């Protein structure tokens, strides 16, 4: 598709293009932009300190690119919040934000509530479990938004080697992307197949986009974002940045099954809402997996709620906080 080739040429970046952080800050200030970093957490005490130290020292103190760094936590039972606070991050319990809207458990919930809690015109989300965290995970994602007003949503992509005690191994990651998401996109939203890692947990987005899209609270949040943003603003609203390498933990096939279930759930709901499917049964939240135990095969049943939060702009408290007038 010619459109994809054109988009890959113009909207795919490498973080090395944005090495001049001072220049980036100059443009940010000239455009009167405010940037917020959100790190969603749940029991991340072994990795959170490193992220906070690095981003605060490099992108707040040395180069004032970020205006705030916030941890939005799902209720960690370890020392995640204490450690993050000791190194200078703002920490929030997701359940304490918009209490009248109730509390759900899931990464998507944290990302949604961050829109209310944080004040930036651009919010960059970075997962807390990145072993080789580096400032490029932020400046590489926000730079296209700062320099290119027509871009609204920037996704990360990278090599994804696996790390264990013995060292770095070639990537076994990206399985859900290649087996599930890219085939689905190729069938139903071919232009979105050009996003190299549609499930990456690192992305930067303009507030006016974030506040207008719904948020599945579970695994489907990234996929649904892409479909919703694409439907409203088109492929040109996206950018993607090569962040070189992201060292991550290996996930079991069973965990990938849960992830795939959540993604498929969100995807099918979007097909249904766009009239792209015929009659479909109610999509159950029950995922069935199987295991061999003491000579017998047995079911392992997971209930994976794929509830969605509405666009934040529909929440009265949000409209009050950011002075948005009712139409």
């Amino acid at each position, binding site marked *: 598709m010619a459109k994809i080739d054109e988009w890959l040429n113009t909207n795919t970046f490498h973080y090395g293009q944005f090495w001049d952080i001072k220049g980036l800050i100059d443009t940010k200030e000239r455009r009167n932009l405010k940037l917020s970093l959100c790190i969603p957490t749940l029991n991340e005490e072994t990795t959170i*300190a*490193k992220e906070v130290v690095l981003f605060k020292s490099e992108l707040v103190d040395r180069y004032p690119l970020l205006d705030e760094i916030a941890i939005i936590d799902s209720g960690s039972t370890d020392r995640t919040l204490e450690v993050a606070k000791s190194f200078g991050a703002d920490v929030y319990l997701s359940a304490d934000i918009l209490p009248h809207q109730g509390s759900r458990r899931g990464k998507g919930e944290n990302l949604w509530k961050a829109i209310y809690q944080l004040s930036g015109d651009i919010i960059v989300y970075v997962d807390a479990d990145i072993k080789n965290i580096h400032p490029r995970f932020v400046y590489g994602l926000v730079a296209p938004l700062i320099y290119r007003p027509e871009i609204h949503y920037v996704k990360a992509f990278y090599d994804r080697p696996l790390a264990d005690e013995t*060292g770095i191994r070639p990537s076994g990651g990206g399985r859900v992307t290649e087996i599930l998401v890219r085939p689905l996109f190729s069938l139903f939203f071919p232009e979105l197949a050009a996003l190299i890692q549609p499930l990456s947990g690192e992305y930067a987005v303009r507030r006016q986009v974030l506040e207008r899209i719904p948020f599945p609270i579970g695994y489907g949040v990234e996929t649904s974002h892409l479909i919703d943003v694409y439907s409203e603003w088109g492929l040109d609203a996206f950018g993607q940045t090569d962040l070189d390498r992201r060292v991550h933990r290996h996930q079991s096939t069973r965990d990938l099954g849960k992830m795939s279930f959540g993604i498929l759930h969100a995807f099918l709901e979007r097909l249904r809402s766009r009239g792209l499917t015929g009659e479909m049964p109610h999509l159950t939240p029950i995922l069935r997996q199987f295991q061999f135990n003491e000579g017998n095969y047995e079911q392992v049943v997971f209930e994976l709620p794929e509830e969605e939060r509405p666009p934040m702009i529909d929440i009265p408290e949000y409209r009050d906080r950011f002075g948005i007038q009712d139409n």
Partner: protein
Amino acid sequence: MAQPTLATQDPGRWIHDLPISLGEYREMLLANLIMIGEIPAPAFDEKARIEFVKQRFTECGLQKVSSGSAGNGLAVLPGRSEGRSILITAHTDTPFPDTVAHTLTVSSDRVTGPGVADNSLGLAALTTLPTIIEGLGLEFTHDLVFMADTRSLGKGNLEGLRSFLTRADIPILAGLSIEGVQLGRLDYISLATLGGEIECIAKTWNGIDGQDTIAALNQIITRLRNIPMPGEPLTRLILGSISGGTSYKTPANSATLRFQLRGESDAVVDGIAEEILTICEEMASNLDIDVDFDVIARTRAGGLSPGHPLVQNALSVQQSLGIGTIAPAHSSAASVFLEEGLPSLTVGVSLGENRGGVREYVEIEPTLKGLAQVIGILRAIDGGCCGED
């Protein structure tokens, strides 16, 4: 009336209070440690780490950011007057190959990862110092030359530092080397050391009936262990590593021993090295195999006296900071300075353990005292404790 700055206060009080003032630089030090420590830097393959350090030097506004022929990372903070310079060094290399995952973890009280103590923390301190000096408003009479030196460990044999000192056209007043650990070390003496490698190589290859070079190396080790090591002057032979062979079912085609001789006398170490050479020649002849003996690193004995003003001033700095001084240890870097007739010290920035392992760690809390100590010693050198131009 203007408040006195740190730089104008009473020196004793000033150094005592300095760690508190350094608190705001803790995250910067840790960030530099993370970014430096996650760039692999085995000896002879340190370019990426050096480039990062040079970039940091440039960002700090240092002058003459450059690399010498040995690939060091160099930069200058000009002093108030022309004259000799103070050289501050930290070695860049670590013992870990780039196949080891160089991912550091940070907890509330420590940073863990390969090479973090030796010497990523030392290099991070060197890299952070210019910003601290600027932030505290400190001025020095002499130029400060910051150097991330390369090829320090193993076969590197301190090549980066040696290359700079023998070729630099900058007159040096004194040297201060920064290591990650241990806080409290004050190394002003160099031992006579000889790092050696003995490799036994089969002359022929005959499968399972081939020459057994591991057995040959074993005989050589037995002979080495029978060499009398004098207690006065104290001399030791350390067998560091052995390697050889590729399979469990065929005799090893080659086998290698790495060792270090260390002692207080150059003559004694030289004499024992001669004995080792003779043993290697005899064994080669007796067993009809090739035996190569290579000297891969060498330092000479010497150093400062305990009463040298530099040592006394450094002790005073450590005492003012409440740092318990560790009994005089030995630094190989001191040997290189000594060869050029220059006084030098090596100090550590923090406490840590598991050096040389992937679970190597350094403690965070002591680093502020460690940095304060470095600044205090630099001020003492700048103030004239090593003599003037």
